[in-house]
Structure formats: structure tokens, C-alpha cells
């Protein structure tokens, strides 16, 4: 039972990813103005959604940790912070690869890009705090504070392309009048969002198990430590 669920989760993730790949390259039509390179959209935008989900989990778990002092919530926040960092880094990597052929530049400091970079810095500071503060309890509390305060960036980042005119494309989903996608592009995009969330949940579950095992090892070490000094 212990290994069945992760194996099923992994198989579902792989199958979903294969379906997403098939749809990206064989089902979705080629976009007329950008051509082939537009297909980066199917990985870039879902990575952004997952990064937002990851930081939301950090936020909720941090609030739970500070209010209940639950080690489970702390482990979940830490796990989501690390996996979210991987997704946010991938988001920042794929963005310029799409921007260069379309805009002619790798990067510009427009509100959406800047706020996403701030989100990445928040993930980095969250993880650095956890690594560099020696006392685990103090590290967890400080990281939770960063996790809560930093969350203000997520809704502003989401709304940036709605509030301001940016170099970044305007929203194509929930973007109001004039926005929208070809049904096949929309379906492919939603399958990709699901696939990346499935991959995220798999990696999160693995990272969470690691955090639980680490806590168990620390507890065992502490229980053996007084006797070790007598040897």
C-alpha cells in the first residue's frame, strides 16, 4: 500500500504528460502570427499557474503553522516552497525563449515580468531562510512570515496584465471582452494545466515524504544522543 499510491500517481502523471505532448504537437493548430514558437505557451503559462498554486500552498500552510504550530503544515510549506521554486525557475526560463523570437528581446522590466521575478526571489529567500537559520523552530517561524507577507505578490502578479498595459500579452483566459482562444488551443492549454498540476502534486508528495522522514531521523538522533555521549 505504501508504494502503490506514489506509483499510480507517477503513472497517471506520465500518461497525462504524454497526452499533453501529443496535443501540443499534433492536435493544436499552428498559431498564424507566431508560428511554431507559440507552442511554448502550452508549457510556459501552465508553469505560471503552478507557481501561483505552489505559493498559495506555502501561504496557507504558513498561516496554519503560525496559528497551530503544526509540524505537518511546516513540512508542507517547505515542500511546496522547494517544488514551487523549480516551477517558477522554469517559468522564468521558458518566458525569454518565447519573448526573443516574438518581441526581439529576451527580457523587459514590465509589471508582469518584474512581479514574476519578485515571486522567484520570494521562493529563493524562503528557501535560503530555511537553510541558513540554525534553529529549526526559528527558521520555520521566519520562513512562515516570509510565506505570508510575500503572498501579496501573487494576486498582483495575476492582475498585472489586466490592470496595466504591458509588453507581456494581455490575458486570453478570463480576460474580458475581445479575449479568447481557438477551442482546440483552449482544450490543449487546459490539458497542459492539468498535466503540470499533476506533476507538481507528485513532486510535492515526494518532497513532503522526504521532509517527514527527515523529521523522524532528527527525532531518533535526539533520542540516541545522550547515550552516545556516555559511550
Amino acid at each position: 500500500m505504501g508504494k502503490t499510491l506514489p506509483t499510480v500517481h507517477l503513472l497517471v502523471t506520465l500518461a497525462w504528460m504524454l497526452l499533453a505532448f501529443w496535443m501540443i504537437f499534433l492536435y493544436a493548430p499552428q498559431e498564424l502570427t507566431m508560428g511554431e514558437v507559440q507552442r511554448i505557451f502550452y508549457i510556459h503559462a501552465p508553469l505560471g499557474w503552478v507557481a501561483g498554486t505552489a505559493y498559495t500552498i506555502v501561504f496557507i500552510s504558513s498561516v496554519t503553522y503560525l496559528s497551530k504550530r503544526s509540524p505537518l503544515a511546516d513540512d508542507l510549506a517547505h515542500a511546496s516552497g522547494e517544488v514551487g521554486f523549480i516551477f517558477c525557475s522554469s517559468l522564468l526560463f521558458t518566458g525569454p525563449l518565447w519573448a526573443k523570437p516574438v518581441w526581439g528581446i529576451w527580457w523587459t522590466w514590465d509589471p508582469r515580468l518584474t512581479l514574476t521575478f519578485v515571486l522567484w526571489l520570494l521562493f529563493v529567500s524562503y528557501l535560503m531562510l530555511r537553510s541558513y537559520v540554525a534553529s529549526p523552530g526559528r527558521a520555520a517561524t521566519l520562513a512562515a512570515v516570509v510565506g505570508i507577507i510575500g503572498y501579496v505578490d501573487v494576486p498582483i502578479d495575476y492582475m498585472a496584465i489586466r490592470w496595466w498595459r504591458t509588453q507581456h500579452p494581455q490575458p486570453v483566459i478570463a480576460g474580458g471582452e475581445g479575449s479568447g482562444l481557438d477551442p482546440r488551443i483552449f482544450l490543449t492549454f487546459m490539458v497542459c494545466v492539468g498535466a503540470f498540476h499533476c506533476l507538481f502534486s507528485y513532486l510535492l508528495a515526494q518532497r513532503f515524504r522526504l521532509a517527514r522522514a527527515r523529521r523522524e531521523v532528527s527525532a531518533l538522533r535526539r533520542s540516541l544522543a545522550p547515550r552516545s555521549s556516555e559511550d
Partner: protein
Amino acid sequence: MLNKYLFVAFSALWLLFFIYAWSLSRRQARLQNELEELKSKQGVRSQESDVANQK
């Protein structure tokens, strides 16, 4: 022919995820070994204290 930006984006992304998943499984295996070692140490300790109590 596949666009070079598209190729780099997809291949680098999967390489990164693969490396991360591999590092997670390595860390997990290392911790599992450590956990088993500590548990066996704990077992030896409790046996030793049982013997000492009997004496």
C-alpha cells in the same frame, strides 16, 4: 523542422524536472538508510538496557 527556441524550452524543462526527481529519490534513499541504521542502533540500545536491568 522544429524551432530551436521550442526545442531548447522543452528539452531543458524536462532535463530540469528529471534531475530534480532524481535528486529527490537519492535524498529519500539516503534518509531511508540513515533511518534504518538509527532504528537498529535504537534496538541494540534497548536490548542492552534490558540486559542491564536483569543483572
